């Protein structure tokens, strides 16, 4: 008969073991296929996401004086990896506005197909200037048109005394629907219109949109050498922008991208061109991410793989027991060792290959499932070459295991093989002790190596399994020792069930590998569930802190208007709060977050982690007791006085600052006060306060050095209903604002304010105490004042410099801005009144969890506050959820589930391997009269005791391993030190894992125990004698 037919018959007859071996092999090979495949897909996802973020990590910009030369620099293969390059041209310029004396700082820009990416709200897109043109056709932004009163047809002169100027003829007014559109490569022409400089006195403009030759025309005209390209140093710059095609880029493309960047850099170094890109940072990030993915997947898969191989080994031992008679018969008939081993290897190779086919399908299915469930994109499903290598290694490992286990059986003496039961796998006690010692040593050494490995190594993930191996070896000995002694004690005390259970455990049939597998299973499941939970919690926490709130919107309305509108629709701030963010003015400067402290601590994620409630109370502005002004005129009487004026000054000018109900700040000049006045002097000024304004402060501005006392009395408003005397409050309500060379006290009383001090010529500034002169803040980070400053300062939303003092230093990251920010009460600046906000300032609305954003936005819109959604916490969560750590972490729980399945298999296989011996033991006990019920309890108790001992030990190892490993486990590719990690194990998850393992394994144990007793008939004893 053919060997093929014999093989099929053999496999069919031993179908139980055939199927079991094939299934376990399928599990192993599925893991071997899935791991590298999934790794590749994660790498591709991370790569795509890294390049999808935007500038500058995914773009490169070549700049230089010659657009043709830039094009020539591009390698030929950029088409496959990059989107279409966008050519551009740019020049700075100063031009003159009729609204301001100072020249406007602006520029002009041309980009390829720019007219398709701007919206002309009026006029037309500029065309190329002809040589006859005296002015360059240009489009100005909507913001500039409003700020500088520019209309279509206007001519805007360029200002530069060193060169011949060129004029710009406005052909259109443009807007940009989406400045974040990839086309702009982060150089949107708008966003600069406004003022800059410490005093907010430098007018800034958006870029003029001109034609490509228009840039040349203008810039060359600046130098008076129109179109003479040979002799002029051009003031403009050409650019070529390329963006990596994130939709199609894969991890395999990255080496080519590196090469392109390196080549371009090398080429640019030898020319006038320059390469601007941060892609090297992206490459570094990807290297780190891929390293995390590869190591984590290898380590995780290896642990489950080892478990699976252990179960396969148990399974093979059962199969070999069943095959002993056949092997013996073949040996009896003269078949050689080698031939028999080859025969068995052939049979099992067929089974392994069949399992591998299933495994490939399973691995492919798992990869496809993971791809559809949590890999966004999704990445290509093309298998990397490592799949073949990994699959080959897995198949080889399975076959080797089978052959290596079969060899000693085949080599057994024929008479031993011909017995119906195999010999007990017992070696000399010293050998076992040696093996146990070696196992413990290897596990401990492995653990130490893992803990000593580099910070970004994922080898520490092996900690729970290594601990479980060492602990299970000890547990085997401890359990046998304890069970034996307890059995004797229980027997003498009349507990037969417990005593028999103890004896059965102490006999230790097949418990060694079972305990190890169960220990590893429990340890891995607990570890993976803890790591998964803790990592997820930290990702969520970080996303929350980075987002700041459940959602954030942005508005162009001034803070006071936003706050007033919110007062109208959500007075208690249950749905949202106003936040004003002023970005730092430089790398060493500190930004400012103006918040409503009470609402902020309730709305912002992690606010109370950043600073305690007391700190938030400390920065809260005092109650607003600024005097109200209602009327059309403000009047004040200056009492008779004599002021020394050593510097020759003759008078002091009195100003009053007040804030309209709309939040707008106005300063009025009440008049001059002579240094000597023998009688009272009545001063007055017009004010526009038909509704209540708030008096903010007084300024007494001497025209020279003065020293003396001036008293203001009878402050009152007139001219409208509600006008009348103004109560100036108590003596402490008007503190002096710090100022160089001034020293004074202000003593207020009902209707009276007394200035008593000296000045070298600088004004006295008194500001109501409701508006602190030095802003109390919570400071994130250590920011001492600069060397040229006496005290640290922050910028107001308008860009004014404000002194601050830190009430507290943040313990953790400030929500959304994280670090290098000072957090102040918004009221401390809105009470000062507003002017035009600086471009660094963004007015935001932070929404609370569960807020009905659409309804709130609609209500605010009715009040003139239009809110544009910026982002939500989910956006930040999505970023972290698609990180290499999160995506690889997704396999932890399935791997834990697989480990549990292998644990169940281990129990079943263990029963199958030892049932003959166990049933003989039980049958013998039945023969001597032990009650069936007692035996049933003992049989179940035996497995339960083993399972419980292994599970509890494994859970302890898992938790200990977690504690050891979690600090060195990479949870984020780029750590955020300002957001400390919470690495404490989750007791609920630990308890759930323990219960899950116990319930599953104990259930299997009960079934196995009952089955065992059912088969322990008396003929088992006779069988043993054969």
């Amino acid at each position: 008969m053919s060997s093929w037919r014999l093989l099929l018959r053999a496999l069919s007859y031993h179908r139980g073991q055939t199927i079991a071996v094939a299934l376990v092999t399928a599990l192993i090979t599925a893991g071997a296929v899935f791991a590298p495949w999934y790794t590749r897909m994660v790498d591709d996802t991370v790569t795509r996401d890294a390049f999808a973020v935007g500038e500058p990590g995914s773009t490169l910009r070549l700049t230089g004086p010659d657009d043709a030369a830039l094009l020539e620099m591009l390698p030929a293969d950029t088409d496959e990896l990059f989107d279409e390059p966008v050519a551009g041209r740019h020049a700075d310029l100063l031009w003159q506005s009729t609204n301001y004396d100072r020249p406007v700082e602006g520029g002009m820009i041309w980009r390829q197909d720019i007219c398709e990416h701007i919206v002309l709200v009026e006029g037309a897109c500029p065309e190329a200037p002809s040589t006859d043109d005296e002015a360059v056709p240009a489009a100005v932004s909507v913001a500039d048109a409003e700020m500088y009163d520019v209309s279509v047809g206007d001519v805007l002169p360029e200002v530069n005394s060193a060169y011949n100027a060129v004029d710009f003829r406005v052909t259109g007014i443009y807007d940009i629907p989406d400045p974040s559109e990839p086309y702009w490569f982060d150089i949107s022409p708008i966003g600069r219109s406004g003022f800059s400089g410490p005093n907010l006195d430098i007018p800034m403009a958006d870029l003029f949109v001109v034609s490509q030759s228009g840039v040349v025309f203008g810039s060359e005209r600046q130098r008076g050498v129109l179109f003479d390209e040979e002799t002029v140093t051009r003031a403009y710059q050409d650019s070529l922008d390329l963006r990596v095609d994130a939709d199609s880029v894969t991890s395999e493309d990255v080496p080519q991208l590196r090469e392109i960047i390196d080549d371009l850099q090398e080429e640019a170094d030898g020319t006038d061109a320059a390469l601007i890109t941060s892609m090297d940072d992206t490459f570094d990030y990807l290297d780190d991410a891929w390293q995390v993915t590869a190591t984590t997947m290898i380590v995780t898969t290896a642990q489950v793989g080892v478990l699976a191989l252990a179960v396969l080994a148990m399974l093979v031992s059962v199969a070999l027991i069943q095959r002993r008679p056949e092997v013996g018969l073949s040996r009896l008939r003269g078949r050689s060792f080698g031939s028999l081993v080859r025969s068995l290897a052939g049979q099992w190779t067929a089974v392994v290959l069949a399992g591998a086919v299933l495994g490939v399908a399973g691995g492919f299915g798992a990869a496809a499932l993971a791809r559809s469930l949590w890999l966004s994109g999704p990445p290509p499903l093309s298998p990397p070459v490592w799949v073949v290598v990994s699959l080959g290694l897995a198949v080889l490992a399975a076959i080797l295991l089978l052959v290596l286990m079969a060899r000693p059986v085949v080599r057994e003496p024929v008479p031993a093989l011909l017995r119906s039961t195999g010999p007990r796998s017992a070696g000399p006690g010293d050998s076992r002790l040696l093996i146990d010692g070696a196992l413990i040593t290897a596990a401990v050494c492995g653990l130490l190596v893992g803990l000593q490995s580099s910070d970004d190594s994922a080898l520490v993930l092996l900690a729970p399994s290594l601990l479980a191996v060492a602990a299970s070896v000890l547990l085997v000995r401890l359990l046998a020792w304890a069970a034996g002694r307890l059995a004797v004690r229980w027997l003498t005390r009349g507990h037969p069930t417990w005593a028999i259970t103890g004896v059965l455990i102490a006999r230790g049939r097949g418990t060694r590998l079972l305990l190890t597998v169960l220990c590893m299973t429990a340890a891995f499941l607990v570890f993976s569930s803890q790591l998964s939970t803790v990592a997820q919690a930290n990702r969520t926490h970080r996303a929350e802190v980075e987002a700041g709130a459940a959602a954030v919107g942005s508005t162009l309305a001034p803070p006071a208007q936003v706050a007033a509108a919110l007062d109208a629709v959500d007075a208690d701030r249950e749905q949202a709060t106003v936040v004003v963010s002023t970005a730092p003015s430089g790398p060493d400067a500190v930004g400012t977050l103006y918040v409503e402290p009470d609402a902020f601590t309730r709305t912002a994620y992690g606010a109370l982690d950043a600073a305690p409630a007391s700190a938030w109370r400390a920065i809260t502005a005092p109650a607003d007791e600024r005097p109200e002004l209602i009327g059309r005129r403000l009047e004040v009487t200056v009492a008779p006085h004599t002021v020394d004026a050593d510097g020759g000054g003759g008078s002091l000018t009195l100003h009053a600052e007040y804030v309209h109900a709309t939040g707008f700040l106005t300063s009025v000049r009440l008049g001059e006060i002579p240094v000597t006045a023998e009688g009272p002097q009545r001063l007055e000024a017009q004010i526009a306060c038909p509704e209540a304004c708030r008096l903010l402060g007084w300024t007494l501005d001497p025209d020279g050095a003065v020293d003396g006392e001036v008293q203001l009395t009878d402050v009152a408003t007139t001219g409208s209903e509600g006008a009348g005397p103004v109560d100036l409050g108590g003596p402490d309500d008007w503190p002096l604002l710090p100022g160089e060379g001034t020293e004074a006290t202000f003593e207020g009383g009902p209707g009276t304010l007394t200035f008593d001090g000296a000045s070298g010529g600088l004004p006295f500034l008194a500001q109501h105490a409701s508006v602190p002169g030095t802003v109390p803040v919570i400071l994130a980070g250590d920011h001492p004042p600069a060397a040229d400053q006496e005290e640290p300062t922050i910028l107001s939303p308008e860009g004014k410099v404000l002194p601050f003092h830190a009430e507290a230093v943040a313990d953790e990251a400030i929500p959304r801005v994280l670090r290098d920010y000072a957090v102040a009460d918004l009221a401390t600046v809105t009470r000062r009144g507003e002017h035009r906000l600086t471009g660094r300032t963004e007015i935001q609305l932070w929404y609370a969890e569960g807020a009905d954003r659409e309804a709130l936005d609609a209500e605010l819109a009715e009040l003139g506050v239009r809110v544009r959604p910026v982002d939500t916490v989910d956006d930040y969560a999505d970023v972290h959820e698609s990180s290499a750590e999160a995506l690889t972490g997704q396999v932890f729980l399935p791997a834990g589930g697989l480990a549990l399945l292998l644990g169940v298999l281990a129990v079943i296989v263990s029963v199958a391997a030892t049932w003959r011996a166990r049933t003989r033991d039980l049958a013998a006990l039945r023969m001597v009269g032990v009650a069936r019920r007692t035996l049933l309890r003992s049989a179940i108790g035996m497995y339960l005791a083993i399972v419980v001992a292994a599970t509890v030990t494994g859970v302890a190892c898992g938790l200990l391993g977690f504690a050891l490993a979690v600090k060195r486990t990479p949870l984020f590719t780029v750590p955020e030190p300002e957001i400390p990690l919470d690495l404490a194990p989750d007791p609920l998850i630990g308890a759930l894992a323990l219960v899950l393992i116990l319930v599953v394994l104990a259930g299997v144990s009960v079934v196995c125990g009952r089955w065992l007793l059912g088969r322990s008939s008396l003929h088992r004893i006779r069988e043993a004698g054969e």
Partner: protein
Amino acid sequence: MTTATMPATQTETGGLSLITSGLVQIYRTEGHDVAALSGVTLSVAPGEVVGLLGPSGSGKSTLLLACAGLLRPSAGKLIVNGQNLATLTQDELDTLRATRLGILLQGASRNLVPYLTCVENVAFAQSTSAGRGASDLPSPQEVLELVGLPADDRPLSGLPAGQLQLLAIAAAIAHRPGLVLADEPTSQLDHAARDRVLEALQRINAELGTTVMLVTHDPEVAARLPRTVTIRNGRIGAEGRAGEDFAIVTADGSLPLPPEALEVVPPGTLLRVRETEHGLELVRVEDEA
């Protein structure tokens, strides 16, 4: 019931001779050694049929396993067809079993591969021999017919015990061995089946000249064997011919007495050996007075 006595010799001498001399087999176990055979000297001629008798634990199966080359003798000689098994390599022993020895284990099922049919079992038994160069092997059907089984291909399930045993014999002789070693081939069989098994062995011996050595506990079977050897305490205790037992002088000149004689002359009894015209006479010295 067939009661014919098996022939003592064959016209075709395809059988192998078996000679043991001072054969000792010691099982070494933890703590102590057990001598299963303590100097067995036995000679079996080619084509002879010999039954091994003796109580449980006397060493019959050990002797059989040793003759099959499955145990390495601790001492003494074990010569099969002129080859001392003690000096053969493992491969040579494998070859010997694959080509010249047929071994029948106690219990028919232990000799058969359960998932193969009757014909396939015989073919499977021949495969090892064929793999070692044997040629001109009979077809499985011929082998089945030789042992008295139908030549059609049937699965093992459902075969009665007697037919299973015949099939086991067919598998054991499938490669035309010169010596068949059978361990209790008739145990657990009814009389009819037992007789068919004995007939099959007789036919094999008669037609092929195969030497047969079988172990049995059954006196009826022993009585039908031309020669029996009784093993007691690892030694040859007696020999029988056609159902009648005789004491036998061993190679060292000793004379193991049958159990019933030992009751008369227990160990330690002084005997005088006298030569008479019929042979020797043993007389207790104490009786001479």
